[in-house]
């Protein structure tokens, strides 16, 4: 029988909401305003998180922020090893990124390979003035020299752990758990 996995709550709904509020403020500070800001969520849960952060900034600053979605499946470097991912999500970038400040939003930062693929993909859509990275959870364990500019919560993990991010829109509740 496999050992029972242990689940620890890292962020409950209220803590997650506070973390996102703080991240929204930090995005505005990082970008010195909202003039050329574009929020780009990585499929799947990064898209929902980007939407939330965008709404918070819009409410605070009284502006409309463009946001996009990026599916990095076709930019992965492991097709041969993990096989094709049958369902590829939507990629949608509503504005020309040239000259913009693009903020990539994802739920969990781990090896950095997803972000590497996202940077490659964004480069095919234009030349942003600047690209920043904003993640809800940084779990360490990087395999590439990539760091986040804005982090909701940092947590130490070991390989084999799973960080399970749930969002209301897709999972019915807001919660981040460490599964070990």
């Amino acid at each position, binding site marked *: 029988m496999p050992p029972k996995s242990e689940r620890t709550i890292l962020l409950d709904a209220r803590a997650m909401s506070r973390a996102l509020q703080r991240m929204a403020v930090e995005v505005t500070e990082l970008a010195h305003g909202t003039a050329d800001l574009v929020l780009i969520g990585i499929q799947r849960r990064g898209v929902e998180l980007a939407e939330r952060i965008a709404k918070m900034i819009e409410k605070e600053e009284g502006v409309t922020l463009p946001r996009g979605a990026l599916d990095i499946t076709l*930019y992965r470097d492991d*097709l041969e090893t993990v096989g094709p991912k049958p369902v*590829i999500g939507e990629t*949608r970038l509503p504005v020309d990124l040239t000259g913009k400040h693009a903020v990539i939003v994802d739920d969990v930062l781990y090896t950095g390979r997803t972000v590497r693929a996202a940077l490659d993909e964004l480069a095919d859509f234009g030349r942003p003035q600047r690209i920043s990275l904003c993640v809800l959870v940084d779990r360490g364990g990087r395999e590439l020299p990539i760091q986040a500019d804005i982090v909701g919560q940092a947590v130490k993990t070991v390989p084999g752990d799973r960080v399970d991010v749930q969002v209301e829109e897709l999972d019915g509740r807001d919660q981040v758990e460490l599964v070990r």
Partner: protein
Amino acid sequence: MTANLGKDLTGLEHLTPEQIRLILDTAEPFKEVSERPIKKVPALRGKTIVNLFFEASTRTRISFEFAEKRLSADTVNVAATGSSVSKGETLVDTAKNLEAMRIDMVVIRHPSSGVAAFLGQRIRSNVINAGDGKHEHPTQALLDLLTIRDKHGKIEGLKVCLVGDVLHSRVARSNIWGLTKLGAQVGVCGPHTLMPRGLEELGVKFFPRIEEAIEWADVLNILRLQLERMEKGFIPSLREYYRVWGVTPERLERAPRAITIMHPGPMNRGVEIDSRVADGPHSVILDQVTNGVAVRMAVLYLLAGGRPELADAAKRGAE
């Protein structure tokens, strides 16, 4: 879930409905890639694909080539004329020589039925059938299915009629397999001399008159009349064919509903299809061509990936 197509795509006859849906669903995001300013993703970077065409083809070959290039594969085109094939080399020798140069996939079109499967059993590379004799043309049927699904939102329960030379048509054969597997009702309509036997066993209805097909169908897929058929006596003349079987606005006007018009191309305007129908509001003929690239990208992508022996090891290390 059957998230795997196996090594080759030789036809739709032996695919499951789940495998067909997998290809159609995978094609969906590839449509968007062709709308990007840089129409290219690196998914098949470093793969080498040979397009081995023993029969004339413009649309299918170019469509495959675009699909390959938009996935960043390296491609080589080999035509039968001007190659060692015309010096008498056998197909398997040609393919083995190409394989000795370390290729990954072969897309083959050939006048003989069954060639794609035959080749697939003899070489290690993935083989994709781009039309083999009168047997199958699976990617054409897949793009037809995708176009029908786009237009009607579903395939199940729709009435789709193939019009014309069903007997000699690999497009018709692949369409019949694909449509029936996905739950459509399939009809055929055309001269008796151009109808194969045994269609009833597949649950396919035969309409002896085009008017009856139009009365029944939601979709007409009008096959190309191969002009050499006339010389062999299957039909009396092109004018007579148009008069009896041609899909015209006058005939479509009597239909109880708007009928989606499809044609795999190249069209003989004024023979099997009237120009006013081909260019009319219900024609999705150019959508078929657009979808062809997306469907072929999906097939290439699905066949290129998925080495199960490596997948387990990789998953243990993945996020």
